[in-house]
């Protein structure tokens, strides 16, 4: 126990929220990520870019626990979370949004948000309560749910089935669900995929607005957007980190030009 | 309650409905909790019809036997209804018990509660029959089961159950005697691993022990009920065939047919005589094909026998259905006839009265004079030993009788039955 604490203290020196250490994932012969060392500071807006097959989503899956790592470790808030289940990681503050909107389509908007909110409160009530006390009677949970519905602007449609929402609202709900788990770090996997220009802008505005306090990790293809939003950018290529830096540094990096953008300017 | 034109009639209806149910009667006032007194079924001397419930497993594994039994039942009812000797008519409904005791009881409830049956008959499988045994006692209706399990008129007997089916104990008697006399006392067994198989093993063993001091059980193999592959057992039996005088098989139905068919293909009966309990059933012979040839079997019934009015029964049966009766047809037939005799004798259709009358009453049956004896209400049927032989034409093995035991000789002693009546 004591040893662990020392370890933890060491790791949390500085204000690093997420750190991966030589993270490797192999699928059979194929190495999807190869010894990735990623460090993300608290409060940062970090984007991850790279060509198809670079290992971006795999990296996300390793950080969130959706896939077990072949080798290496993931530290969150200085703690080794490599062997924790996805849900455990969510509880420690890692939220995730998905490429394709991934909400509970058959439930109402309110239920969607409440479920996430409830996950947070889980330890505050005992087992029997959780079995028998109707959800409507948990005040703090419902208040928080309403607050979030307000923030994502879906309070008016709270009692509609999520499936019935227009596409853009679904994405808003998706973000609301993530927000309701009160994450410290949010991973966004292409939140604007399949959106029109206007929708993209709205979504980004929303993310910026409601998640301003959180650390954000974003996979995005729209380079322009990435350049505009990010504090730092990590470029992956063939499972390895090719470059890391501020948007300006990345734009000026010839390796990036070469590998990611196809060596156009050779 | 007195509203309406016929308070009297309505009260009668209510009473009937209640007494037909599982509970006996009424005392006390509306809204009270009381302790209902026993109330006798009102005897009415004056009746034209008697309601029977015929419960058979029309679907499932025993459905052919069910059909066979049902034809016997129908024939008996037809004859009784046409006969002047009985001044009442039997009305009946059929119920499909499937293979499941739960369904059987439900159907019995339907017959008794909904359709007002006072007499029920049927069921082939012993677990269904045992469930109905209990039901008959609880509901005070007379029941004539179609299963051979010893405990039906043994440990689980009760005063409402009368069995014309020959029990495993009776068959074991003739099998044991004949086997010990003709084949020897070194026996290997193969049984189906359930109640019927175990009871054959027990009954034959007890009797062999009492007949011969040198009796020895060479070995027992057990197969799951419903097994369809007996190669491994046949190999094991063949291995000990030199040490044993005979193989006793405690199986019935499809299990036995398949066993005989496979044993026949392996030529097992050339190595060791095979003695079965029900190999003489036509259904088994039909299923086993030439596998049945040259095997021995206890015989509960074959159409050829010349006892009582059997030949009249066979003729009538053949005329009606174009086919010879077999074991279950005669059980269905005689169960109805004997109960009808009881009703005539009692002059009542009250099941309790009829049950009292039936116990120990003499009947003329296809086996000649017979009775449900008082100590266990089991019919005193004669039993035979037979051999299944290759027929002159066709595939179906013929049964040749080898030895007969009278009802007296075959029946176990009253004190050994486990029945306390």
């Amino acid at each position, binding site marked *: 126990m004591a040893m662990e604490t020392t370890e933890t203290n060491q790791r949390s020196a500085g204000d690093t929220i997420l750190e991966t250490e030589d993270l490797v994932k192999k699928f059979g012969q194929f190495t999807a990520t190869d010894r990735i060392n990623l460090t993300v500071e608290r409060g940062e807006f970090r984007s991850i870019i790279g060509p198809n*097959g670079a290992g971006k*989503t795999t990296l996300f899956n390793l950080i969130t626990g*959706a896939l077990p790592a072949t080798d290496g470790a993931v530290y969150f808030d200085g703690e080794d979370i490599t062997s924790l289940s996805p849900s455990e990681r969510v509880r420690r503050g890692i939220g995730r949004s998905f490429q394709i909107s991934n909400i509970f389509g058959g*439930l109402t908007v309110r239920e969607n948000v409440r479920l996430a909110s409830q996950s947070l409160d889980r330890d505050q009530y005992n087992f029997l309560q959780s079995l028998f006390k109707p959800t409507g009677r948990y005040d703090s949970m419902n208040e928080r749910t309403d607050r979030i519905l307000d923030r994502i602007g879906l309070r008016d449609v709270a009692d509609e089935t999520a499936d019935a929402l227009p596409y853009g609202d679904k994405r808003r709900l998706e973000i609301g669900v993530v927000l309701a788990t009160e994450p410290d770090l949010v991973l966004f996997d292409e939140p604007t995929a399949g959106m029109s220009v206007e929708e993209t802008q709205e979504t980004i505005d929303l993310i910026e607005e409601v998640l301003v306090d959180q650390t954000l990790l974003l996979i995005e293809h729209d380079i322009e957007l990435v350049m505009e939003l990010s504090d730092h950018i990590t470029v992956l290529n063939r499972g390895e980190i090719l470059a890391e830096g501020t948007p300006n540094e990345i734009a000026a990096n010839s390796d990036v030009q070469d590998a990611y953008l196809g060596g156009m300017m050779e | 309650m007195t509203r309406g034109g016929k308070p009297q009639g309505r009260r009668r209806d209510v009473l009937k409905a209640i007494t037909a149910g599982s509970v006996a009667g009424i005392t006390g006032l509306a809204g009270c909790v009381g302790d209902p007194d026993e109330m006798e079924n009102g005897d009415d001397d004056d009746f034209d019809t008697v309601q029977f419930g015929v419960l058979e497993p029309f679907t499932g*594994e025993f459905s052919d036997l069910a059909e066979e039994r049902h034809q016997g039942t129908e024939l008996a009812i037809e004859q009784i209804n046409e006969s002047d000797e009985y001044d009442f008519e039997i009305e009946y409904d059929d119920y499909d018990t499937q293979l499941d005791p739960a369904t059987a009881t*439900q159907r019995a409830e339907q017959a008794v509660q909904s359709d007002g049956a006072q007499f029920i008959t049927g069921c082939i499988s012993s677990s269904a029959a045992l*469930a109905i045994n209990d039901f008959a006692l609880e509901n005070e209706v007379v029941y004539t089961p179609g299963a051979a399990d010893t405990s039906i008129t043994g440990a689980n007997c009760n005063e409402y159950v009368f069995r014309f089916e020959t029990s495993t104990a009776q068959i074991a008697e003739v099998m044991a005697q004949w086997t010990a006399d003709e084949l020897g006392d070194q026996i290997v067994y193969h049984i189906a691993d359930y109640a*019927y198989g175990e009871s054959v093993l027990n009954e034959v063993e007890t009797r062999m022990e009492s007949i011969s001091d040198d009796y020895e059980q060479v070995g027992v193999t057990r197969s799951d009920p419903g097994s369809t592959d007996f*190669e491994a057992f046949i190999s094991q039996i063949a291995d000990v065939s030199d040490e044993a005088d005979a193989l006793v098989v405690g199986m019935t139905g499809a299990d036995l*047919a398949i066993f005989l068919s496979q044993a026949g293909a392996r030529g097992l009966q050339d190595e060791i005589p095979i003695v079965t309990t029900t190999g003489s059933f036509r259904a088994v012979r039909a299923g086993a094909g030439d596998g049945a040839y040259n095997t021995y079997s206890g015989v509960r019934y074959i159409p050829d026998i010349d006892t009582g009015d059997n030949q009249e029964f066979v003729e009538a049966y053949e005329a009606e259905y174009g086919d010879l009766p077999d074991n279950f047809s005669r059980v269905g037939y005689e169960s109805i006839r004997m109960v009808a005799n009881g009703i005539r004798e009692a002059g009542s259709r009250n099941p309790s009265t009829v049950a009292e009358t039936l116990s120990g009453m003499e009947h003329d049956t296809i086996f000649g004079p017979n009775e449900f004896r008082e100590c266990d209400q089991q019919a005193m049927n004669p039993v035979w030993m037979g051999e299944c032989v290759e027929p002159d034409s066709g595939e179906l093995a013929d049964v040749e009788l080898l030895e007969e035991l009278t009802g007296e000789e075959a029946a176990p002693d009253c004190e050994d039955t486990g029945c306390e009546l």
Partner: protein
Amino acid sequence: MITGFLQPLVDGLTIGVVYVLLAAGLSVIFGVMHVINFAHGELFALGAYFALALVVPFGGTAFFAALFIAPLLVGIIGVAIERYTVRPLYGRNPLYHILLTFGLVLVINDLIYLVWQPGNVNLPVPEILTGTINVLGINASVYNMFIIVFGGVMAFAVWAMLEYTKYGLIIRAGSQDRQMVRNLGIDIDRYYSLVFGMGAALAAVAGIILGGYQTVSPEMGMSVIIPAFVIVVLGGLGSFKGAVVGGLLVGVIQTVLRTYAPIFEGMVIFLLMIAVLLLRPRGLFGVETEEEGGELLTGSGGFLEPQTRKQLAIGMIALLALVPLGVGTLYSAYAVTLMIEIIIWGLFALSLDFVMGYTGLVSLGHALFYGLGAYAVAITLLHVSQSAFIAIGLAIVISAAIAWFVGFLSIRVGGVYFAMITLAFAELFYNMLYRLDITGGSEGLFGISTYYGIAGMGPTLGDIGFYVGPVALTGQSLFYYIALGALIASFLITRRMLNSPFGSVLKSIRENEQRSTFIGYETTIYKRRAFVISGALAGLAGGLFTLNAGYATPSFAYWLHSGEVIVMVILGGMGTLYGPIIGAGVFFGLEEILTGFTARWRLVLGTIFVLFVIFLPRGLVSLPAQLAPYVSGGSGPGPEPEPAPDEPSVRGDD
């Protein structure tokens, strides 16, 4: 001593080869179409009956002709089944194929009864195949040798067909990547019928050669289908090689165990199946296939206003409470008996719905818990205490505990594999009931009596009478209220649970398990809890039955009952709690009415069920919503909600 070893081997191979033929078709059908064909056993039986129809009039030598003609006919039937019943379901959750083919089992089985009559019949084989041979001290019949050789040749021919012909290549490719086969311009969908027909024909061949070896009977299909599944699961769903190895393995293991360890026979294949599913869910030779998407279609409850629904429910309960009062005037006491049956099975169906409709776990072995409850009550009453309360309490606790254990082992495998493993557990239990002394073996336990109280204080139902006006409520009628009370209490409790945080999580799992994980729920734990609650309720249902009926028999745990309760849930509408209760009512109502007309009522029921699975998968409760648009003339949801294909979101790579 070599013969000592060879004899069981030869014996085992005989049956093993038949298993191979049976399992090969089943497995290839799954590989290409992802259809689990429960009706395979019936096609097997049909093969034997067609052969019988040919051999009987023409004599033994027609056997050889039958060996080719009958499979052809069954193959054609297989094609028709694929074309008209299976095809409309592609794209839905593969569990619907299980449901559909279960319905087909009921239909085909009754058709066999109708056409050929019940009973075991011997299928005569030609003279040339009779007699025995003795080699190396091994005794075997010529027919055994014929089975091994002919079956071996057939299996080899199928293998060669798969390996070396154009069709075989296409079928193998189809079981690996259907879309790519389409991309190559090959109409793989057209081959589905062929594959189904071929699988059916193989089953028919197995049926014929086994028919000659055993007997032919309408039950022969039911008796082989479970072992066939075990083999396919062992070998790996979709793998021909797996079917061959699995079939021979099971044949030999069974035979060897009969010789050396007879106590395990019957149980061992299920233990083997459970072990394989837990350690290597894809079986010995199975390959990783993509989990087929497609949601389970739950009933829609949103048709009526909540207020109206509440009033309707109260009205229904009031009506139900009045039932015993009409006995003797409006109807006989049998009405109460029938209603008790419906209530108990309604409770059983409700228990299944709680896991199936809310967490998507389709348990094919729920009769296990029903049987467990029944036996727990019976054993308690016989050996521990005659108190009904103690017995029922124990039944609930024991069922819940075993459900926890089964759930602990099973829930980690999903979908079709979960269905299979629960089936294996139920069969294991069913087998144990036969073997154990405490369960009374094959006959079960009888003559059980009880009182309603604790520590020797309390009346039996037969001793009490309540009098309401002219009607006396005693015995059966009082028990009716106990059962009804249990059902209503269970309904209210489960409904309350679904409105609690726990229930919300269950619903979220049904909607989208992955998302549920990523908002912080350990879904396995929630599913297991739901399974425990479901098991406890099923145990309560079984316990109530035994309490009333006074006996317990192994048939309570028979797999057909697990199937029937699924039928009830689907008929009513899964995921609604009340739908399955309605389903139970309709099921028994139909049975009650139909048995009055024909012993072949399962034919009608099966047909209705098949039509439900195809056309009204959301059950009866969805009927008003389905009809509403037509009645009011407005446009509503189409009759067939098209589930969007699930795009797997956690992928290996981006």
